[in-house]
């Protein structure tokens, strides 16, 4: 183990960690915003909403993220002329943009499925109670169904966040220098295989278990009303 080299490379690895965190946060935030309407569309009785979202969710959950990244980043090149005409080529040329776009769509699909299950699991009695108070439609959804569904979904959503954090490591394959990319770059120059990958592994471990801990706290806080006496 060459500790000196680890010390020297640490600033670059930490910069890569910053990119990893940034990608995770951006994709999570946009993915979450997309997931709720997607889950509702998936549950709707309107076939024009139901089947396209079902197809979207099935495609993004059934294919590897790596293929999705390549499809959007390299695949968009096939439509360069069309995208240029629409003024979108500058975005698709940018690996960072493609990474966020792919990760967002991917996590939106997984999260939509988690929320669909959670919305279906909201006890009927709570919805009936809400109706008995005279709430209906959007108000009922916003005040009763959604908060309860979010609490039900929290453990599964926490897992999805951890998976997304780890999935961001794939963006190094489309030239984004995240933590994995930075470690790989230094490894290819210095042949310091263990030093780089093990340091990266430790940084990922810290982030993963930090997230796991944060979600456990959040769960405890949100479910504080369920006092367990036993």
């Amino acid at each position, binding site marked *: 183990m060459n500790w000196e080299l680890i010390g020297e490379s640490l600033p670059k690895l930490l910069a890569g960690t910053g990119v990893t965190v940034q990608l995770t946060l951006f994709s999570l935030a946009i993915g979450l915003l997309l997931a709720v309407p997607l889950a509702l569309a998936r549950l709707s009785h309107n076939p024009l909403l139901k089947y396209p979202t079902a197809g979207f969710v099935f495609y993004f959950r059934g294919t590897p993220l790596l293929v999705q990244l390549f*499809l959007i980043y*390299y695949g968009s090149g096939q439509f360069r002329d069309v995208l240029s005409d629409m003024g979108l080529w500058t975005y698709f040329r940018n690996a960072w943009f493609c990474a966020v776009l792919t990760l967002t769509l991917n996590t939106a699909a997984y999260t939509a499925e988690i929320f669909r299950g959670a919305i279906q699991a909201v006890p009927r009695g709570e919805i009936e109670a809400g109706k008995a108070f005279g709430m209906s439609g959007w108000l009922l959804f916003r005040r009763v169904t959604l908060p309860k569904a979010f609490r039900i979904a929290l453990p599964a959503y926490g897992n999805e966040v951890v998976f997304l954090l780890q999935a961001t*490591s794939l963006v190094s394959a489309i030239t984004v220098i995240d933590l*994995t990319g930075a470690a790989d770059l230094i490894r290819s120059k210095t042949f310091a295989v263990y030093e780089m990958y093990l340091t990266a592994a430790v940084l990922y*471990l810290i982030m993963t278990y930090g997230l796991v801990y944060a979600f456990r706290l959040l769960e405890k806080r949100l479910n504080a009303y369920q006092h367990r006496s036993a």
Partner: protein
Amino acid sequence: MLDLQGYGWLLLKGLQMTVLVGLCAMFMAILFGLLGAWGKFSHSRLANWAADTYTTVVRGVPELILLLLVYYGVPKLIQDGAAALGYELRLDLNPFVAGFMTIGFIYGAFCTEVLRGAFLSVPRGQMEAARAIGMSKALAFRRVQLPLAMRMALPGLGNVWMVLIKATALISLIQLDELMRNAKLAATATHQPFTFYFLASLLFLAITLVSMLVLKRAETWAKRGVRV
């Protein structure tokens, strides 16, 4: 009409390799999973600690990092070891072996949890009955506990398989000629990246669909002795 310029067969060859490497990885994953579950149940502190560390570390580190660590790290470890003993050695790992071993090792951690739960759900009475009619511990494990646990584990192992087969796409990054890498070769040669990556993704979807059907049948078959 879609013109694949003769590269269609390359995708199919890749598909074959993906399924093969996936099956080998799944076999390893179940082996590692049994080992891990044994470690978690063992009375040995060391085995408990090893199994806990295994599942904690593997689930906390991205697959790609572990894959690169094994692919570049293991040959270097052996070379450094040989150098310390005064031998000059040049070694490269076969991407197929490195790939399925690493993916198997990673998903073994997920299988550990599935199998642990399955063994816990086998009623104590079953094992006691087997012992009472004179089976040795090993025989009772093989004839009674393992088949019952496997039945309970089947849905969980099926889920692991679905995730595992998608993770094999990563092995393309260490140059194994599987579906993803062959799609890349075809995409570069024909300048039709979208067409080929999209076809590759459809083939992955096909694997997922077929697996879903097979698993459903397997679960029905495994439950044939259970009264509803």
